[in-house]
């Protein structure tokens, strides 16, 4: 069996073309005919390569209009703790934060296994939705349930949870410095509430990230359960040396 089929090879070439030519989100991409000529392949091969890039979430198709470069993803650094807004500022995306609910809850048996706290512990439960501006529309991309022990952050409700990141509030309001996170990433399917909130169909696959944040003394600061639109997120570990090398080689290729 051949290692790379023609369409796989072309999909690679197109990814390179996007990088080399610095193709920006929302930019219109060349037609099948143009690319077939440019790369000396059948139009069917171009179509198939484009489909692969679409499945990978790199490009978007608009009915009767053509193909466009997809949006960027919101990157979670696998090594470094950052709040959601810090991540977004990084790539210059505009977001809005909406507080859906603020409750005081007690840990029950099911929650106990997740937050690693005994039943009966009082927690602030904050439900928020994150929206990004894309194509002049405000798009909900993430629902986050944050549980913060009352013993860590008493009267949390008095802070503006739409304007401020929870990390900033914990740092500045309570002197609790987030130090370490243990996270799990899974794929889940949207229930009715999630589908409605994220404006997707029920059973749409979503990315679930859940885990606990600790401070330097090992106290549990928060337990987060977040479901996200899969096309908008990526989890990355970067390496400066490798990136520098790639930058240097790009000129010569």
């Amino acid at each position, binding site marked *: 069996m051949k290692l*790379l089929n023609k369409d796989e090879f072309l999909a690679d070439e197109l990814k390179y073309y996007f990088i080399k030519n610095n193709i920006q989100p929302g930019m219109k991409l060349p037609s099948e005919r143009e690319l077939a000529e440019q790369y000396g392949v059948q139009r069917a091969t171009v179509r198939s390569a484009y489909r692969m890039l679409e499945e990978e979430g790199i490009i978007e198709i608009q009915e009767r209009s053509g193909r466009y470069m997809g949006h960027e993803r919101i990157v979670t650094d696998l090594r470094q703790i950052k709040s959601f807004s810090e991540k977004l500022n990084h790539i210059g995306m505009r977001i809005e934060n909406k507080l859906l609910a603020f409750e005081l809850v007690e840990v029950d048996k099911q929650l106990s296994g997740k937050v690693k706290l005994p039943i009966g512990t009082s927690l602030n439960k904050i439900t928020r939705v994150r929206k990004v501006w894309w194509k002049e529309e405000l798009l909900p991309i993430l629902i986050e349930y944050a549980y913060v022990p009352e013993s860590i952050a008493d009267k949390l409700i008095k802070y503006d949870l739409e304007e401020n990141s929870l990390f900033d509030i914990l740092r500045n309001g309570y002197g609790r410095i987030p130090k370490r996170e243990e996270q799990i990433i899974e794929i889940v399917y949207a229930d009715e509430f999630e589908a409605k909130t994220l404006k997707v169909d029920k059973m749409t696959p979503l990315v679930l990230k859940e885990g606990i944040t600790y401070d330097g003394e090992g106290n549990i600061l928060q337990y987060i359960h977040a479901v996200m639109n899969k096309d908008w997120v990526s989890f990355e570990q970067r*390496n400066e040396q490798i990136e520098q*090398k790639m930058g240097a080689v790009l000129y010569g290729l």
Partner: protein
Amino acid sequence: MDYRMPLYIQLQDVIVKRIEEKKYLPGEAIPSERKMAETYGVNRMTVKRAVERLVDEGYLVRKPGAGTFVAKRDNKKIDFDYALEADNVGISAMLRKTDITLTNKVLGKGGVQGNHYLNYQLCLPMSETVWGIERVRLGNGEPFAIECTFVPEKYFEDIEKFDFAKVSLYDYMDAKGHLPVHFTQKLVVCNADDKAAELLKLKKGTAIFLIEYQGADQDDQVVEYTRSYMNPSFTEFRYNAESD
């Protein structure tokens, strides 16, 4: 080793040295008993005795009808490759169930020329050839990942000779002095395209994990670019982040 020592002990020593020097790699077959008897001019019973002792000591594994193989370091863990387990790596893939027997199947391999994206990922000028291998990873016989790994051919000139369904690619790269130790990683969730769906036995469009990584050796040379598609019903990912 003293030449007056019994021959089977000397032979044992020879085999262990070959393993330690990575001339025989974990998972690879050692020469047949007949061949070793011929090579060293000893009786086949002598070879048999040496091999048996090394099987008992865990250096070698006999597979009836197939031959004698160099044992893998850790049969349970090793084939879920190193890049997803090493210390300096952000994310680890975890199999949801334990006691799963992992096997590999090689789908294709060979040199790739003129692919700008692969050369870019490996930081190689276009004059260099990329060598690639595509494998399916199976857990209890069920496919859970498709993994394409690309390496610069210049570092691994005899790579064609090895069977990476049995030998760990990382053991091989280590033996060549180019074990990846620094990594970039990127995990996204995407839809299974036709090929991924077929190989993972999923419906087309099913959400799957796509994890890509680059590995650089101790001299910061990029020696690996891998992309792996994983069936989410077998795997989940974990990571630990810290603040500065």
